[in-house]
């Protein structure tokens, strides 16, 4: 008689109760997976916003409201004047003016984490902003004139845009000359076009809202930022560290809250499993007494009860991870307005497999812990006491 069969049969002696317990554990797991992966994704996306201007000083208007490297509100900078002033600052390697616009017409509200962007970048300066991002399938090219645009892969998939597609942005007809192949949310959801074109399309002629300034060799970001602040008026010069300093405390606090909620959910699961197993053990005192009488080792009885709790964890965990992953995808879709069909193929981007394994393991461990006290009660059952109570 295998322990697994023995435990499964005992577990499903009370089908309704066991199923309800499994559903309870599954709901807890689902909650942890959905909330955890959604918040993790949120944090990842916010952190990714900095990726474009990594190791560069970001110059914005002194009124600008910036989340990481993305200006979500505030003033513009006069392009030519500011760029000229910046080139005069000692220790400057490169100056790239960028017009960052959000959104591009899919949803009209300004969001803390926008779901799509337009980046106007001077022709030929693409890599200075989006790095070595390749074009999907190596098909097409970066914009070479002021009617072309490259689009992020997620945006292209959502809108069925391919190389050669003609799209209309703010009444301007533009040709898609390439699709950016990147898993970075910011790039995957961007329209990248020549700066002049962006200024024309969005009605900001001669204006930009970010200028990325690369320090020369031997010059630190902090030094360069100080020099910029000293030489150029009415601007904020933010190093990568300063940009992180704004957001990281918020993200850390968010992480703490999420962890607290997850812990509370796990504790509730533990209490649920412990209660159900205690009921089960107290109903089966006669069985444990019989095992005691026939000479079953204490370890056998202990293992059997803990194994039953573990099985609840395994069933609830599997169910919860599957449902939680689906819920996470649905939440991601609702949150970003991106169709579900685009998220499902990249399920493991939304809920990383390692996170699934971590949560599943956590649930199984919690359930096993929930079985410990009932298991101790089970090994304490003595046949003499049970029979004396009966007769």
């Amino acid at each position, binding site marked *: 008689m295998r322990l697994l069969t023995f435990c499964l049969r005992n577990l499903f002696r009370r089908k309704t109760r066991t199923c309800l317990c499994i559903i309870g554990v599954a709901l807890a797991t689902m909650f942890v997976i959905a909330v955890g992966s959604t918040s993790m994704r949120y944090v990842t996306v916010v952190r990714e916003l900095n990726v474009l201007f990594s190791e560069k000083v970001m110059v914005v208007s002194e009124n600008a409201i910036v989340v990481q490297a993305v200006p979500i509100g505030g003033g513009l900078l006069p392009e030519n004047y500011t760029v000229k002033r910046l080139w005069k600052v000692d220790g400057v390697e490169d100056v790239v003016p960028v017009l960052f616009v959000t959104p591009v017409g899919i949803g009209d509200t300004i969001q803390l984490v926008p779901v799509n962007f337009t980046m106007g970048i001077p022709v030929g300066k693409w890599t200075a902003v989006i790095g070595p991002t390749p074009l999907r399938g190596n098909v097409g090219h970066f914009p070479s004139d002021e009617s072309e645009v490259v689009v992020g892969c997620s945006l292209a998939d959502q809108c069925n845009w391919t190389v050669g597609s003609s799209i209309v942005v703010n009444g301007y007809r533009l040709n898609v000359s390439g699709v950016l192949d990147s898993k970075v949310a910011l790039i995957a959801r961007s329209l990248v076009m020549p700066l002049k074109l962006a200024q024309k399309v969005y009605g900001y002629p001669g204006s930009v809202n970010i200028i990325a300034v690369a320090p020369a060799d031997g010059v630190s970001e902090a030094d360069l930022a100080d020099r910029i602040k000293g030489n150029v008026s009415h601007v904020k010069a933010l190093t990568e560290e300063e940009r992180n300093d704004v957001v990281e405390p918020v993200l850390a606090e968010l992480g703490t809250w999420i962890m607290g909620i997850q812990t509370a959910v796990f504790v509730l699961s533990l209490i649920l499993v412990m209660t159900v197993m205690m009921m089960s053990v107290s109903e089966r005192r006669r069985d444990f007494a019989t095992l*005691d009488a026939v000479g079953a*080792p204490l370890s056998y009885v202990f293992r059997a009860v803990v194994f039953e709790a573990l099985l609840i964890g395994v069933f609830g965990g599997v169910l919860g991870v599957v449902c939680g992953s689906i819920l996470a995808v649905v939440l991601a879709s609702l949150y970003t307005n991106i169709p579900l069909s685009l998220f499902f193929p990249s399920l493991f981007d939304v809920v990383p497999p390692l996170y699934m394994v971590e949560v599943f393991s956590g649930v199984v461990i919690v359930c096993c812990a929930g079985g410990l006290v009932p298991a101790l009660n089970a090994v304490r059952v003595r046949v003499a006491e049970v029979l004396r109570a009966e007769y």
Partner: protein
Amino acid sequence: MKLRTVNLTRVYRRGSSDIVAVNKVNLTVEPAEFVAVVGPSGSGKTTLLNLIGLNDYPTSGKVFIDGSDASVLSGGERRKVRLFRMGFVFQTFNLLPTLSALENVELPMALAGVAQREQREKAVRLLEIVGLGNRLFHRPKELSMGEMQRVAIARALANDPELIIADEPTGELDSKTAREIVSLLSEINKERKASVVVATHDEKIVDVAQRVYRMVDGVLSLER
């Protein structure tokens, strides 16, 4: 197995009063002997069986198994004695309800580490001996009371015990089935040379026992 008790006493504390369930009992069970303990309900028979079956600890006195003092045995050692050298039959059968008849009989063998194939073969053989060869895969709730007691007897025999302890084995059975169980226990005693200690009210058992003790208010006296 030779079993001997010396001044075996078990006192239960209930509230502020002490109840002497077993009072200075001296009992000897010789190898292959069939002993019956008779007495009214509450006289201490079950407590005595629990003490000699090492399921309970005496308040005072000792149990000797083959001349060795069982009081020095650890919990694990007592379990091993129960598993390998004793078999138990209860009035209410105490079969595990989720296991089939066959699995119930296999259980002590599985606990004793017997190979799975051997367990199966022996369990089938034992169930055939007790007349349940056609009820192997039935769960306890699908069996009659007499059949359940036969399964319990087969389970008690699983590890070839030297001592079978039966507590009112016919208490829940009709007279015809009770007769069958009595003759089964008697056959086991004779053929397997296992000692049998039975607590009972049943005159049929008293008739087949080689020695009969009477227990009244925890005191044991030899009747026959």
